[in-house]
């Protein structure tokens, strides 16, 4: 195989003195034509900056290559040192030899140009095509990225398309030049799990078709198991380990790689679930939700609403003390809306929510997804923790302070945290603060709305551990909302799968994960990337999410369930 890219001792820094502020501290790797290299690391590892250096896009973000060489073999056979190339030469590489796709498809497409125009521009820049030729080429490439109804999509603006579609447009734009190297910077991080699987499958196929090399950046080491030939693990700006994919995954040498592999929740299809469930003993449910319906009116045409979004359409479940019920689904399925309705943050259109007599004024508390946004940046930790108590009539006395100290200790934070501000803590620490705050009022139920989704993998594992400990110690019931099956496997006793506002399958975790019955559950589980199944190919499946908007007065047909086990029910699917 011919060598395509050779990076030697790359150093990249930022700011006034780049040499003093290095983010990449001496990275070397080689890439052969047609090969796929995965660069894996957590935030701050320097993986993105390394990738952005290959086409020198770092320069526009204030970065400078302070040392090292990047030898790229171009299509005409010449070798170019990108690190020292001038801007004119670089213009010849970008979008031609080297293509790139980015993480956030929403912001990475120009909002005022149609997608058709943006793709045609890519063809014009790389191959000099104009007019009818460019138009035809655009239609072709849209077909290759499997966008249905391509002709009409050409005139769409980016905001009119879904996240998965936008990412396909980005891929189409990058493909326009038939690049020899495609750099993919966390292309699926912002997408739903099933959409992620679709995009991964697409990339794998395109790679086969075009023979292009790929550098795939990600924080999810499980994701690349199916697509990478070689893996490079980065930490703090250095490559701590690299080698053949199988070798790195099966026999990691460096401690950090081992740590990453351990921390990433491995999905084992039900084998690793908890077995301290309490449902067997007769307990009064602490929360009972019956036929919850939440609808948002939409589109007023002369004072009569044109319809409603059926966000939650008849959801029922209950929770027993000490038990975790996980609600799993993708964006738009209604899981967050259900959680918010439970707390009174959304008004319910219909349905009953009954909380059993517990020992607290406010028996249900919540931990939110974004640790940055759920703590008022202008209040000290002490004020933040005291707020729930004060709102319920307690005074700022020693009992209160004792409780704060106790909870801080339980979640693993130092006592001097009280005088500090949220921005002085890391994401994981902030989430611990949120947990402590949620426990201030001694609740019976804690709703965790994607509470670990925004955290780095190794931090995630620790916070999950903490949650399990707290549950066992205080007998809390958890409603755990998530889209990540592997995380859910670690913490759930029971699982409810939601799709389009309805629960489609519910039951004991082991049963649901090892023997999924509903078509959607199966698709969801099949899409979860797992190292164990790395030899499997991703099948390309184009199903879209249905729209939740219904005309006013529409009532869905009553749910019909069938039993598939002792604690395992499946909704009978409507015939399409």
């Amino acid at each position, binding site marked *: 195989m011919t060598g395509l890219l050779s990076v030697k001792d790359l150093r990249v820094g930022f700011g006034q003195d780049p040499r003093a502020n290095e983010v990449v501290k001496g990275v070397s790797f080689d890439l052969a034509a047609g090969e796929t290299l995965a660069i894996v690391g957590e935030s701050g590892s320097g993986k993105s900056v390394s990738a952005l250096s290959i*086409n020198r*896009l770092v320069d*526009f973000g204030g970065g400078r290559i302070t040392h090292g060489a990047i030898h790229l073999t171009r299509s005409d056979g010449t070798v170019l040192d990108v690190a020292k190339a001038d*801007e004119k030469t670089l*213009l*010849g*590489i*970008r*979008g*031609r030899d080297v*293509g*790139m796709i*980015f993480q*956030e498809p929403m*912001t*990475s*497409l*120009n*909002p*005022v*140009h149609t997608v058709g125009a943006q793709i045609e*521009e*890519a063809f014009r*820049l*790389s191959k000099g095509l104009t007019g009818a030729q460019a138009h035809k080429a655009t239609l072709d490439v849209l077909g290759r990225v499997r966008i249905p109804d391509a002709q009409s999509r050409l005139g*769409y*603006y980016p*905001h*009119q*398309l*879904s996240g998965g579609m936008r990412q396909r447009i*980005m891929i189409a*734009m*990058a493909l326009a*030049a038939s690049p020899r190297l495609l750099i993919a910077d966390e292309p699926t991080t912002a997408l739903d799990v099933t959409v992620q699987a679709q995009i991964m499958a697409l990339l794998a196929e395109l790679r086969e078709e075009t023979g292009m090399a790929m550098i795939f950046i990600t924080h999810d080491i499980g994701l690349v198991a199916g697509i990478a030939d070689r893996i490079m693990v980065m930490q703090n700006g250095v490559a701590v380990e690299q080698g053949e994919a199988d070798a790195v995954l099966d026999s990691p040498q460096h401690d950090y790689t081992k740590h990453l592999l351990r921390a990433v929740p491995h999905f084992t299809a039900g084998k690793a679930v908890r077995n301290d469930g309490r449902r067997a003993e007769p307990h009064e449910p602490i929360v009972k939700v019956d036929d919850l319906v939440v609808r948002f009116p939409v589109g007023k045409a002369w004072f009569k609403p044109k319809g409603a979004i059926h966000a939650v359409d008849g959801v029922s479940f209950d929770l027993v003390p000490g038990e975790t019920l996980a609600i799993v689904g993708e964006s738009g399925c209604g899981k967050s809306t259900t959680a918010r309705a439970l707390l009174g943050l959304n008004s319910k259109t219909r349905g009953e929510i009954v909380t059993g007599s517990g020992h607290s004024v406010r028996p249900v508390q919540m931990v939110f997804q974004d640790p940055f946004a759920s703590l008022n940046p202008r209040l000290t930790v002490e004020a933040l923790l005291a707020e729930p108590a004060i709102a319920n009539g307690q005074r700022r006395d020693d009992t209160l302070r004792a409780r704060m100290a106790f909870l801080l200790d339980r979640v693993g934070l130092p006592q001097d945290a009280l005088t500090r501000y949220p921005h002085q803590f890391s994401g994981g620490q902030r989430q611990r603060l949120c947990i402590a705050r949620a426990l201030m009022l001694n609740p019976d139920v804690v709703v965790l709305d994607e509470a670990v989704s925004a955290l780095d993998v190794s931090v995630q594992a620790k916070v999950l551990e903490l949650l399990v400990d707290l549950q066992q110690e205080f007998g809390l019931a958890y409603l755990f909302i998530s889209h990540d099956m592997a995380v859910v496997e670690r913490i759930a006793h029971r699982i409810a799968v939601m799709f389009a506002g309805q629960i489609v399958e519910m039951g004991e975790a082991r049963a649901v994960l090892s023997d999924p019955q509903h078509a959607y559950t199966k698709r969801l589980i099949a899409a979860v990337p797992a190292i164990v199944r790395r030899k499997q190919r991703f099948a390309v499946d184009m199903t879209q999410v249905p729209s939740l908007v219904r005309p006013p007065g529409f009532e869905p047909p009553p749910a019909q369930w069938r039993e598939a086990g002792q604690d395992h029910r499946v909704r009978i699917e409507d015939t399409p």
Partner: protein
Amino acid sequence: MSYVVQRLLTFPLILLGVSILVFVAIRLVPGDAITAMLGTEAGLLTPVQREALAAYFGIDQPIWAQYLRWLTGLFQGDLGISSIYGKPVLSVILERFPLTLQLSLMSMVIALSIGVPLGVLAASRNERPSDLVVRVLAMLGQSTPNFVVGILIIYVLSVFFGFVPAMGTFTPLFADPLASIAQLIFPAITLGFAFAASVTRISRSAMLDVLSDDYVRTARSKGATPMSVIWHHALPNALIPVVTLSGVEFGYLLGGAVIVEQIFALPGLGRLVLDAITQRDYALVQGTVLFIAFNFLVVNLLVDLAYVALDPRIRIGRR
């Protein structure tokens, strides 16, 4: 689409509010209404004449009836009689409107044609000397009141060039375009000076914001040339905030015309308001204020509609 509809519906509502405000404001002037309307001559009236006039003008009616009567008059184009000129207010306004309009438009053209390119240039040369120079100049420009600029211009022209800009008369555009523009060029520069500085700063910061957006990075990764990045990719997005903010500033142009017309002794609408106030011609004050406010609202509405045209996210909803 609903955005446009919303704006078009609130427009008459606000106009109504404006008319009420002006109506009430005039009624708040100390002294009775007859004096307000007739000025000093009211002192010569006998009580019988006063009563007759009161009935004629409907002053003895409750206030909301007076308002409605005034409003219906408005729709018919009757804004009352000016006590200074002895003519219908509307005709006095219409005589002087073209000058103020031309002045404002000229200022706007000057400000935009200097401000936008300068701002874009500064943004593309961010942190380099030319950027710093532009920023300093723009900051100084924005801190200089228009009357200071006007006086300085007159000073410089008279002392160094021995030249006094023609004042007092005005040649309409259609009669003699060149002379017309020449007459107003210095007032237009005065008026547009601060506006130009403001446009420069707004353009620069809008461009800087846009240049750090993700889609610019995507364009660069496609190999787009730097020129194309700035003019084709960035500017259409940067224009959106520039248009909206500039539209708001245009209102200050209309107001600033008051002072500039005073300095250059131009017979425009702004000076009319001033004279009307100092000479207590309340019908005229009412009429001109209403008229100017109306124009201002129309300009704002046009700016909002332009915003719709520029931003497809507003124009077309989601799928």
